């Protein structure tokens, strides 16, 4: 029954361990707090950008998982702070003795598990963003004109505000607007010959123009914004071919949003990785400290040398003991009956 990974811990190294653990625990608390802030920020961003992601997208699961994982890491850090401080003070340690064991199990299983899940999501989900954005943006652009259709009446405002805030135009470029009818039929003059021609020449009866909405305009352009007749090089006299891109925003909203969300997910993922490492270190340190102090019988200031270990015996022995203990717990009835019968027999024999 050899202990797994034993470590000799006389008084001085024990104190060093406790102090180092205190520092690491505060770092873990900080990391947990940062994760809470970052995932909260990502959740708020997703609420604004929710219309541009396809409803089937699983991406919001990442900040939600990270939020819970961050909270658990924060809790683990606080436990570590309290336990390491208590281990240096003989009066404070006794209440921690009973609590530390279950807390370590909960921290490893719950906290570790959550962090691994969150890390996995952080690695896997950003890949699905591409398709989700493609679908979401396509739907939003198609419904731009539907300002009176219930359920889609906000699309125009949201797309305009997206293009204004993120400095982008269309899905991959301004030409995307040429393939979508973004002027509502309600504002098209049916008696205008040009309108009738355009609608008739289109297979689906859509009114397509080579123009873009005002929100594509780039304020950095030196000339007032050119929104119409963009594919006609003679449409606007005095158009300066040396500066073609300054008139409208050059980037497409797909690329901009993808980069933005992937950056946020990447930051969150790296913070989760750091927290995972810190949590593993803190839990290891707490386990060694706990077993070392158990060896002393809970007397903190004892000068004796003790051993800290990870597990009291190897994995197989541990499983065997756990199985036996579980078995004993499941067979109480036959065990209790004989002791119940024995004392009356003794009484009879005495009498």
């Amino acid at each position: 029954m050899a202990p797994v990974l034993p470590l000799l811990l006389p008084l001085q190294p024990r104190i060093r361990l406790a102090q180092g653990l205190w520092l690491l625990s505060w770092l873990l608390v900080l990391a947990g707090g940062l994760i809470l802030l970052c995932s909260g920020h990502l959740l708020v961003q997703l609420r604004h950008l929710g219309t541009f992601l396809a409803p089937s997208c699983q991406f919001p699961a990442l900040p939600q998982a990270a939020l819970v994982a961050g909270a658990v890491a924060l809790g683990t850090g606080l436990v570590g702070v309290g336990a390491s401080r208590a281990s240096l003070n003989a009066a404070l340690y006794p209440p921690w003795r009973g609590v530390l064991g279950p807390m370590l199990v909960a921290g490893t299983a719950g906290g570790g598990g959550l962090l691994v899940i969150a890390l996995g999501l952080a690695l896997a989900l950003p890949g699905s963003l591409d398709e989700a954005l493609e679908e979401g943006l396509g739907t939003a652009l198609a419904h731009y004109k539907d300002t009176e259709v219930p359920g889609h009446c906000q699309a125009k405002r949201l797309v305009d505000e997206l293009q204004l805030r993120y400095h982008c135009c269309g899905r991959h470029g301004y030409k995307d607007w040429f393939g979508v009818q973004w002027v509502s039929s309600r504002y098209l003059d049916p008696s205008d010959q040009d309108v009738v021609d355009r609608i008739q020449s289109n297979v689906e009866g859509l009114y397509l123009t080579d123009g873009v909405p005002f929100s594509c305009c780039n304020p950095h352009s030196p000339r007032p914004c050119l929104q119409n007749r963009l594919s006609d090089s003679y449409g606007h006299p005095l158009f300066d071919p040396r500066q073609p891109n300054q008139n409208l925003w050059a980037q497409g909203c797909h690329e901009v949003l993808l980069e933005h969300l992937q950056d946020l997910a990447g930051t969150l993922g790296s913070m989760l990785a750091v927290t995972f490492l810190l949590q593993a270190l803190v839990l290891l340190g707490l386990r060694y400290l706990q077993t070392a102090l158990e060896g002393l019988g809970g007397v903190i200031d004892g000068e004796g040398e003790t051993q800290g270990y990870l597990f009291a015996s190897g994995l197989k022995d541990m499983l065997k003991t756990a199985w036996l203990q579980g078995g004993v717990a499941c067979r109480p009835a036959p065990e209790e009956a004989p002791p119940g019968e024995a004392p009356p027999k003794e009484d009879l024999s005495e009498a």
Partner: protein
Amino acid sequence: MALLKVKFDQKKRVKLAQGLWLMNWFSVLAGIIIFSLGLFLKIELRKRSDVMNNSESHFVPNSLIGMGVLSCVFNSLAGKICYDALDPAKYARWKPWLKPYLAICVLFNIVLFLVALCCFLLRGSLENTLGQGLKNGMKYYRDTDTPGRCFMKKTIDMLQIEFKCCGNNGFRDWFEIQWISNRYLDFSSKEVKDRIKSNVDGRYLVDGVPFSCCNPSSPRPCIQYQITNNSAHYSYDHQTEELNLWVRGCRAALLSYYSSLMNSMGVVTLLIWLFEVTITIGLRYLQTSLDRVSNPEEPESESEGWLLEKSVPETWKAFLESVKKLGKGNQVEAEGADAGQAPEAG
């Protein structure tokens, strides 16, 4: 007849000193808050100095920054004094400085109150500079190739988009200035030539606005040109159309933004002022009660603390007399010197 006398035994004095020590450190935090509020306001004013003619008054943020720094200094000093007040030996060092220090604290509180009032009262000057600055900004909107003004178009566009406003008082301000540069006008077109000829100053004026005036909440694509011509657009009536462009003028929008900023800063400063007044009163009680104790040689005895030794009118009279004595004191010394010299000569 002291003002607001309170009896203090040793325990009460110790509690007062400890409480004051804690309050002083919170007050240092409050001083940092005032400092950062002033800094934030200064940065916000700087950001928009282009549309304020670069002549906006920085009095409010500068005074907030100054008061923040002073508050930190005074309150950390007061914290040190309160910490030492529990030890008679250390307190003896501070004793001669306490009365002038309290006078400075009272002065500081008065100035802090005045600064808080200024936060509420100085928006009038801002309105004027904004009006002037926006007018000039719109005039230079088209000068995108004039060095020194080439950024004005971008500034005004971003301003109108961010603050959801159009023009100085409304979108009609754009009808009165030429905001399209001559460089982009086709002078071979008859329409352009007609417009310029029909204008007295030879300017190209349109009933149109830049794209940044457009309101994204409008159900129809933005109508920027020929705004007052109902027949130019299908199913359009410019008198009843409210959602097409931003209705508010940028002067009102910016003014309301800065007013709300300064009002909230004024409220925070007033609350901190109340906190500082409480600290000064507590310090005064501590000083008077400790002074009464250090005369007899029993540090544990009871003593009384008060705000003023005599009632308010008597204190005011005594203050005036001491000021007069200061003036007379020089005279008396001069006479004494003359009298001294006269017997010597005589």
